């Protein structure tokens, strides 16, 4: 099993979620994060002065999937989260050594 982690733009969450669901990913876990990267932060105003906020709100998606689903997951995310603009985010893939469904105690692919 692999854990596919994607950091994406927040407003793309819904699209990505649907894309994953379409290819049979049954569950994901989502975290609000702040991203620092090539996409520079934005300027904000404070009492007549401008200043730079150097991070951006992003959303991190974690999807544990069967090995043979990994490529399609990556593809789906890449497609759904793409705007073509800087800051679209990254996908990282990790190896999962074990997985367990707490409710049933099932392990491995059955747990996903």
């Amino acid at each position, binding site marked *: 099993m692999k854990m596919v982690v994607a950091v994406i*733009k927040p*407003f793309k969450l*819904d699209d990505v979620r*649907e894309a994953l669901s379409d290819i049979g990913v049954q569950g994901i876990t989502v975290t609000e994060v*702040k991203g620092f990267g090539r996409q520079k932060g*934005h300027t*904000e*105003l404070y009492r007549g002065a401008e200043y730079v906020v150097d991070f951006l709100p992003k959303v991190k998606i974690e999807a544990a999937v069967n090995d043979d689903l990994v490529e399609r997951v990556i593809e789906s995310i890449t497609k759904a989260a793409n705007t073509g603009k800087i800051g679209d985010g990254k996908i990282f893939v990790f190896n999962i050594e074990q997985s367990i469904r707490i409710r049933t105690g099932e392990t491995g692919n059955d747990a996903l």
Partner: protein
Amino acid sequence: MKKTSLFGLGIAALMLLSSVVTADTAAPAAAPTAATTTAPATVAPATPAVAPVAATPTVAAAPAAPAATPAPTINSGDTAWLLISSALVLLMTPGLALFYGGLVRSKNALNMFMKSFISMALVSVIWVVVGYSLAFTKGNPYIGGLDWAFLQGVGLTPNTFYGATVPHQLFMIFQMMFAIITPALISGSVAERMKFSSFVVFMTIWSVVVYSPLAHMVWGEGGYLRDLGALDFAGGTVVHISSGFSGLVLAILLGKRKIGHNDDTRPHNLPFTLLGAALLWFGWFGFNSGSAIASNELAVSAFVVTHIAAATAALTWVLIEWVMYKKSTALGLATGAVAGLVAITPASGFVDPIGALAIGFGVSIVCLLGIRLKHSLGYDDSLDAFGVHGLGGAFGAIATGLFATKAVNSAGADGLFYNGGTELLVKQFIGVGVAIAVAVVGTLIIASIIKLVMGLRVDQEEEQAGLDLNQHGEMAYSRLT
């Protein structure tokens, strides 16, 4: 380039305005003291002096005094009540900002706040410059003149027509607070997508060419609906119908928000919405009860029916929810309360507690059903400014024709259910019709021009990122410690 065209637009609007205005302002706008004697003459028994009635039911002596009173005297109690009422009505606009601000996603929260707060800054200045004058000088039946522009002649002695016992400036500032909240109400229909600059330009023009004329027709000396005898004690038509229907038009012109199927569009902070509803309720006592322009029996009656209608509507709403879902929502209670306050507004100086119970009960049913229209008809009245203020205001204005009773206000009229026949009801329908017409036509024209000149809507990327950041350069909350 855009600036120039906008400037041209402003000039055009002003020219249009002055052509309407000048016709009549040449005629004697008259010494304000003369006004009292004129007013009763033209309106006679059939046409009551509506909101600011000098003669309240129990003060029988009032009509006897006119000739003897050389200088009207200030009553400190009336002044105190109108001072605090003015402050209360002002507080409603921040209350509205909280109400609306809590309902949007956090990325658009400040934008909602700003669309209300800006009115406190902008419309106040407009009111001083021309708004009050256009609304309340005598003028013609449809609009006042420019005699009181920059508040020239609006002093500290009473204007006996509008309020015989309080300084004229006090009546002016009390009315200003109404002018402030009205365009702010509209922002509920355009939430999460309308450009701030366009909204500000819209608000500016709308305040001058829709609000002031309508206020004149309903409350101004010689105003068309006032002289007709249509009743609107505290602004059901002027404030709520006008803003609600204008909101509807804008919502349609703007189109729907871009929202994904499963996007989380839930209110980001319902406690803010509840606090906002509370401040609205609190301030509404000034709105309705202050409209008696005195600290007297009529003010008390208006206060009492206002509260009863709000409570009844809130209760009705949550009971309906309970019947439907076995749950009662906080937003439902708040929405019901506001709907009740909206509906009682035109009626508040004319109905008794039983009428208030009926109006409160009815309006929640109307609004709850009315709000569903948007799902079937497909317009995105995002925060239901139309559903609550447009429909609720119309319901209240019509209900005034049913429940009004002279037992409460001898200067009012008897409605259908109080042996008054359909006479008042017909007038109320006319009032509602005129208000809708003015609002819809006015908004259509203003918004269409703005759409052409500068656009109405933020672009899609801005909408996705949230309006706070790109329209205001700020975010409502910073999360990292």
